């Protein structure tokens, strides 16, 4: 019954949303095809900045997913009654985000056809293998948990009380597995970066806690974002008190996140040793410094929206705050990944060979440019400091992946009963 109401009310926005998302997905698929044909040379990544938008997107999606599942399983583990109406929705978001996070590794690979080597020849020392393992398990756990919650609901609707109680009990027990796995998923993703001595910006024990805090921020923000839209257009029927409860938790999490960041900064700045301070200077005042400033501005603005009572009562303001926070966390990922590559530890002229030809092949300033190609500095195939700005192919693939996640979530909301269960009083 609920779903017929839902469909009746939502035909127009549902189909136009699906159409728009499909267009973005198709553009992304075309860009991905181009990349498979030409290789990663059509991205702007080169030997100096060798990871870019794709890896940032990956970390962002893993964070969103972990945040979503933390909300959904915490509601079961800690018996947080008021979160239960959105447990299924948060679980759906987590499943879609983690699936697309896993996918977002594919465009980053130089040899996507060899991806199964990850399973044939795993190196157990590699944090990447830990991540592959935990993300794969996490995907299945979140899908299974979603199925459990939905089938428990269905059983109750059909009046099968014993089956309902049974499923509910399994779901609750399973949440005890899902919660630590969700936390671990994002910790392992942080350790991919945080364990590397070669990048001082990453190499801090605080990175995993920072990733968890920002994951909860982005995960909660997306849950609010989706709930506000789905309430408005798909008649999801989530009570407003649930959203404002989430918003309160979100404001606390922002503060925890910013606190961790600030303590990371002071630990770097106070000793005033160049090795500690210079990566931070690059983060804030380097060519990509605007990312860090925008991140802080967005975080503080969103926090203001969430704590000023007049604003936080408005769904629109909450929606705006969640958009700001989603972008804030994405900027944090970019700000962590790109500046880390700008200044290598051994940095002397002529610098790093970029790995592709920009024209002729010369070692000093004078040379014959024989192959004029898309060159910012024709004929010189070295860069002293790394530079990077994603090409349209990278943007298209990234937005395609985000649109695909959004499409999966939209379809899930439309076709799966992820809204709050019928009021307990009705069914009993």
């Amino acid at each position, binding site marked *: 019954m609920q779903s017929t109401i839902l469909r009746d009310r939502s035909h127009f926005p549902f189909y136009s949303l699906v159409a728009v998302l499909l267009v973005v997905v198709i553009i992304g698929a075309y860009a991905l095809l181009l990349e498979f044909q030409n290789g990663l*040379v059509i991205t702007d990544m*080169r030997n100096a900045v*060798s990871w870019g938008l794709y890896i940032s997107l990956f970390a962002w999606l893993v964070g969103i997913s972990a945040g979503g599942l933390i909300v959904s399983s915490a509601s079961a583990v800690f018996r947080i009654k008021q979160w239960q109406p959105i447990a299924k929705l948060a679980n759906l978001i987590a499943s879609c985000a983690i699936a697309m996070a896993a996918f977002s590794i594919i465009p980053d690979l130089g040899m996507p056809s060899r991806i199964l*080597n990850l399973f044939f020849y795993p190196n157990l020392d590699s*944090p990447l293998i830990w991540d592959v393992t935990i993300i794969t398990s996490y995907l299945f756990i979140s899908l299974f948990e979603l199925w459990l919650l939905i089938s428990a609901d269905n059983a109750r609707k059909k009046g099968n009380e014993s089956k309902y109680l049974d499923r509910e009990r399994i779901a609750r027990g399973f949440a005890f597995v899902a919660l630590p796995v969700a936390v671990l998923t994002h910790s392992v993703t942080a350790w991919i970066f945080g364990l590397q001595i070669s990048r001082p910006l990453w190499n801090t024990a605080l990175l995993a806690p920072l990733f968890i805090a920002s994951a909860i921020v982005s995960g909660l923000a997306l849950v609010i974002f989706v709930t506000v839209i789905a309430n408005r257009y798909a008649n999801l029927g989530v009570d407003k008190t649930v959203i404002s409860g989430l918003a309160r938790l979100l404001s606390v999490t922002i503060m925890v996140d910013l606190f961790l960041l600030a303590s990371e900064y002071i630990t770097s700045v106070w000793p005033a040793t160049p090795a500690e301070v210079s990566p931070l200077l690059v983060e804030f005042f380097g060519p990509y410094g605007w990312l860090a400033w925008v991140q802080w501005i967005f975080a503080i603005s969103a926090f203001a929206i969430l704590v000023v009572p007049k604003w936080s009562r408005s769904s629109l303001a909450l929606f705006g705050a969640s958009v700001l926070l989603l972008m804030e966390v994405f900027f944090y990922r970019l700000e962590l990944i790109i500046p880390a590559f700008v200044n290598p530890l*051994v940095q002397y*002229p002529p610098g790093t060979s970029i790995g592709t030809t920009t024209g002729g092949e010369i070692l000093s300033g004078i040379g014959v440019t024989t192959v004029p190609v898309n060159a910012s500095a024709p004929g010189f195939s070295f860069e002293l400091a790394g530079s990077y700005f994603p090409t349209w192919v990278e943007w298209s693939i990234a937005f395609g992946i985000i649109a695909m996640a959004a499409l999966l979530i939209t379809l899930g909301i439309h076709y799966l009963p992820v809204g709050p269960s019928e009021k307990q009083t009705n069914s009993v």
Partner: protein
Amino acid sequence: MTKLGMLIDLSRCTGCQSCAVGCKVENNEPLGIWWNRVLTIGGDEIDTPSGTFPEVQMHYMPLNCQHCENAPCVKVCPVVATYKRESDGLVLIDYDRCIGCRYCMAACPYGVRTFNWGTPEYSPGIDFPVGHQGDHFDVDPSSGPNRRVYMPDRPRGVVEKCSYCVQRVDNGIEPFCIQVCPTGARIFGDLDDPTSIVSTSVRNGQAQQLLPELGTNPQQYFIPPYTQKGVVPATGNSAPSNLASSAEMIELAEEVGGYIPGFTPPAEGIVPPPPPPDVTKKNSEGGSA
């Protein structure tokens, strides 16, 4: 055990780029890819000194894979495509297995790894592979079967780097950069053999590793120009004299038992570097070009 190592005497390096070019030829490196770069330590541009005349300073530092004993790239490689060979400690890449995730490039503190972003291109007119011809498979059985550690035409989408010319070393020949260095700044051999030239030079030449504080423990060593015997940093208005003079080199040579890296002519019997004992016998690959 054998532990192959290299020592570069920076006071002898003239920045001629022969090793960089020789490496590029021997290993058929495509445009934009350099396994071995000669960095200028001085000004902001290549071949420029720091300071103002007459107080200027400049020297060179060739940089290739450091073949670390505690190699970060080996630890992060998710598919064991990069691995450290047991028989002599070379860090190698299996070009058949690399998935191109570039985690090793993020993990390497020395920035010596390079990626085939596009289909490898060569200078127009050179439409044939140069340097070593034929693929080379690792001869150390403990590395596992079918480890294609050298191929003249690497595919798009894999990471590549200096292998200490594994295709030559496995045939008992020294790396090409050793052979082409005109000043004998580079020496190569077994670090585990206390009598080898490279070992004695590392011991006696105040050799240093690059970024030792990271604990990667490279098998590549440098003799910094400043630490040569009798060197005082340039002061006052006189021309800088922080490089050892020939007389000082000879004096030092006598101290360390008659040998200074590359100083004694090969004809008098100290060179060439010892062939790696374990691997030469098992070798099955063809010779170099």
